[in-house]
Every structure is written in C-alpha cells, then in structure tokens.
C-alpha cells in the first residue's frame, strides 16, 4: 500500500460522503427545470440535513434497539460501499476486501436493516413499505448480479476495480454486450433508488410510496442519517455504473499524483451528466403501479441475460 493509494482511498470516501447530497440536489434541480418549476438550490439537501441534525430525536413507544442502530448501520454500509467502489482510482487498499458480489451483499444488508426497522414499530405503513421494498429488492438483485457477471466475464475477474481497469484499457474496443447490460443497469438503478417509474421520492401519498413509507417513524438525526444514506446509495450506484460503462478517467497507479488531480473533475463531470440523465428519464416516464414493478424488473433481468448471451455469441 503506497501513500498515494491511501490518499486516493481517503479522498474517495470523503468526496462520496460530502458530494452525495449535492448529487441528489442536482438531480432534483434538473427535474424541476424539466418540469418548468422553479428549481430548489443544489445545496437544499445539505440544509435539510442540517435542520434535522439540530432537532431532538423522538422514538416511538416500543422501539427496539434495532430501530435505533439501523440508521448508523445503513449509513456505515453505504460508506463502506463507497470505499470499495472505484470512483476515483482503481488501486484502492480497501477494494481487495470485497468484490462485486460482496458489494451487492453489502447493499442487501442495508436493505434488510431498513426493512426490519420499518416493521419494528408495527405501524401499517412501515410494514407495507418494507414488504414492497423487499419485493423490489429481490427482483432487482439478480438483475444487478447478472450485469456484474457480464462485466466480470469480459474482464475475467469479479473485482470491481479490476473490471474498471480492464474495460478502460482500450478506448477502441467495443463490447456489444455492454449495450444490453447498460439498459439493465439503468433500470435497476431507478428501482433500487426509489426513482420514478417504480417509486416517487417526492411523494407522501401513502398508497404509492415505498421508500418514504419506511422512514415515517424516524426523526431528527436518525432521519438525517437515513436520508444521507439514501443520497449516498444513489451516488454509489452511479459510481458502479461509471466503473462498468464509462471507466475512463479513474486514476491508476502508474499515473501518479497528477492522475488523482485529474480524476476528481472527471468524476464531477460524469456525475453532472448522469444526474441530468436520471432527471430526464424520471420526467419522461410515468409512475408504474406497484404491481407493474415486477414486470419492470423482469425486463431488467432479461436485458442482463441477453447481454450475457450476446457476449457468448459475439464476444471476442
């Protein structure tokens, strides 16, 4: 482990934690523009978090310790995930700890905790949200794994940094299978982050919400951590996408400190474009009924499998 890789690792985690709310703010701003509304500031999520951190936390009667620790667990897993994902550099000291499959498991851990905490209080909405979240989760996970497997088959490794490295080697090598997995990954990203075709992050209309329903009982710092974790989750998914589909720009060992200096603005540009893209998709699509969500995710899985088949047929 060199100093440079340690610096990259630290910078990456700090950048993820600090920039994730701004990324969410940027998506919201783009959405507002596209919908002809006056946009909130990019910094709005920060103000929301600051407000929540200054309030006194209230816990429901009969809340178990699980309910209290969940925000910390969820935030922690998202930070660890951010450390594993090669958003800035590919030679990270922590990235050897977990490969792509373990990363999916890590994200699943967060989901299990959120769902358990939502059911812990015993309110109807919490249970309803938890069940829906698990339904979306168990369908999205295989699709995400399939997407990872295709990238892993191309680069012959399941480690995400090595995948990013091997895919970024030749700019002139095209992988037709990645066109399919790209579509599949976008669908999974939308479903997992409670974005519009599956869930609406802005709604508090009880019958349609999934993610918000699970957070109803949280307040103050717990809620702040949960919302921060949600922003981090979106950021992490975007970075997983970058690692597989646009891996250029993440620094490598050979490039030295200059590479790291270049990696930050490149990542920022990618995030700006990805955020605008998410906002565009959200504006163009209508919210699906909850019972149509399995169909949506089945499509994602199907595209991922097609990517695999195309790789087998056309792969070099």
């Amino acid at each position, binding site marked *: 482990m060199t100093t440079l890789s340690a610096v990259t690792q630290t910078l990456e985690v700090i950048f993820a934690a600090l920039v994730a709310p701004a990324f969410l703010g940027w998506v919201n701003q783009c959405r507002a523009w596209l919908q002809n509304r006056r946009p909130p500031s990019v910094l709005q999520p920060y103000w929301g978090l600051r407000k929540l951190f200054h309030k006194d936390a209230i816990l429901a009667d009969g809340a178990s310790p699980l309910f209290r620790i969940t925000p910390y667990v969820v935030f922690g897993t998202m930070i660890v995930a951010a450390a594993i994902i090669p958003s800035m550099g590919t030679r990270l000291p922590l990235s050897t700890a977990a490969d792509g499959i373990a990363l999916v498991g890590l994200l699943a851990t967060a989901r299990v905790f959120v769902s358990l905490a939502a059911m812990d209080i015993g309110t109807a909405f919490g249970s309803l949200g938890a069940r829906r979240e698990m339904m979306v989760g168990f369908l999205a996970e295989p699709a995400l794994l399939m997407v990872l497997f295709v990238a892993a088959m191309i680069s012959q490794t399941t480690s995400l940094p090595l995948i990013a490295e091997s895919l970024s080697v030749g700019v002139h090598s*095209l992988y037709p299978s990645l066109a399919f997995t790209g579509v599949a990954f976008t669908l999974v990203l939308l479903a997992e982050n409670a974005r519009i075709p599956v869930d609406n992050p802005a709604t508090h209309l009880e019958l349609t919400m999934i993610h918000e329903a699970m957070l109803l009982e949280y307040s103050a710092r717990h809620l702040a951590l949960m919302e921060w974790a949600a922003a981090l989750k979106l950021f992490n998914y975007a970075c997983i996408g970058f690692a597989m589909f646009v891996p250029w720009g993440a620094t490598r060992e050979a490039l030295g400190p200059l590479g790291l200096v270049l990696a930050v603005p490149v990542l920022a540009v990618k995030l700006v474009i990805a955020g605008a893209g998410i906002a565009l998709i959200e504006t163009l699509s209508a919210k699906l009924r909850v019972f149509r969500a399995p169909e949506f995710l*089945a*499509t994602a899985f199907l595209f991922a499998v097609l990517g695999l088949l195309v790789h087998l047929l056309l792969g070099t």
Partner: protein
Amino acid sequence: MLRLPLDLQLLNTCAALLLLLSFSMLAQRRVVNLVNLLAMQGGLLFVATLLLAWRTGEFHLFLSALLTLALKVVGLPFLLHRLIRRLGVYWDTEPLINPSATMLLGLLIVIFAFGLAQPISALASTATRSTIGVAIAVILLAFLTMITRRKAMSQVVGFLSMENGLFFGAMSATYGMPMVVELGVALDVLVAMLVLGVFFFQIREQFDSLDLHHLESLKEHE
C-alpha cells in the same frame, strides 16, 4: 484475448443494437413509437451495410446501403406515419399474451436462434459469420411481435422488421444477396406496403376497426 479489428467490432455492436431494438419493439404498445423503432432499425441496418461495404469493397453493397436509407429509414416510416394519422390508430390495446410472458418467450427464442446459428456460422466463411445468430433472432422476434398483436398496423410493422432481419442475415452470411434479388425484394416490400395500406382502409370500412380478429369468423352474422 484476441482483439477484432475496429470495423468488425462496430458491426457486432450494430448487430447487438438491432437485437435490442427488436426487443423494444416486442415491448412497445404505441404504434407511433413502433414505427420510429422500425426506422431506427433501418438506420442501424444502413450503418451496418455501409461498414460491410467499406470493409469488403463490394460495390453492390454501397448501392443496397443507399437503398436501405431511402426505403427503410425515410420511405416506409413516412408512409406508415401517414397511414397512422389517416386511420387514427395510435394504440395496440390488449396484447394476446401478457408482456412479461412475451419477453420471456423472446428470451427463449434468442437462445434457440443462437443455438440454431452455431452450425451455420461454422460453415460460413465471411468475417461477419458470428452475427448470423442475431439475424435469425431478429427474424423470429419480429415473428413473435406479429403473433402477439391484434391490430393490422402493428402486424405490418412486425412484417417489415422481419424483412430487416432477413436482409441482415443475408448480409452476414454471404455479404448480401445479388443485386437483382435485392432490388426485387425492396420493390416487393414497397408494393406490399402500398397494397396493405389500401387493405387497411377496406378492413376498417368493413368492420369499423383494424382488429384482425374480425377476420377470423367466416360468416357476417352469427
């Protein structure tokens, strides 16, 4: 890992995108979007033909690329859009099988097509032999699109997409058909389109709808 030359990589990508578009057509319920997807498929076919022409240096492939551009990207979609406007059919409601089952069926078809293409690809000597499977898959998927729709309009789009698949198959197996055949097929498609356009109006006049189920009963009054 063996690296293919760039133009072949581009061709493979075109093939993959063709397959992707076929799946989008299978899932698409709006007839207008269906026609737009068909035009995009034509566009991809044009690019693929041009790439192949450039690679092999065969003159007749240039001609057929131009023919593709004129007919499949501009001509037929224009005709179809005009028909849609005149007939006022924008939706293909009630698919015969539910959408996820259709997509799963599509996946099985792709696996079948890829398996079917394996021995053919082994025999072919062209540089593009690996895309034969994609061509067969496109043909069969277009067939599935036709089977699962009720409205005459979307069935015609499926038919045209099937022709795209055949064209692509001929291209990847033998660098395209002889010029005479290609011209004949192009003309056939154009004429078929015109005749079908007339048919649509007749069908609608008879049954007040474009639902082909009305054609299944033999007598007018039961």
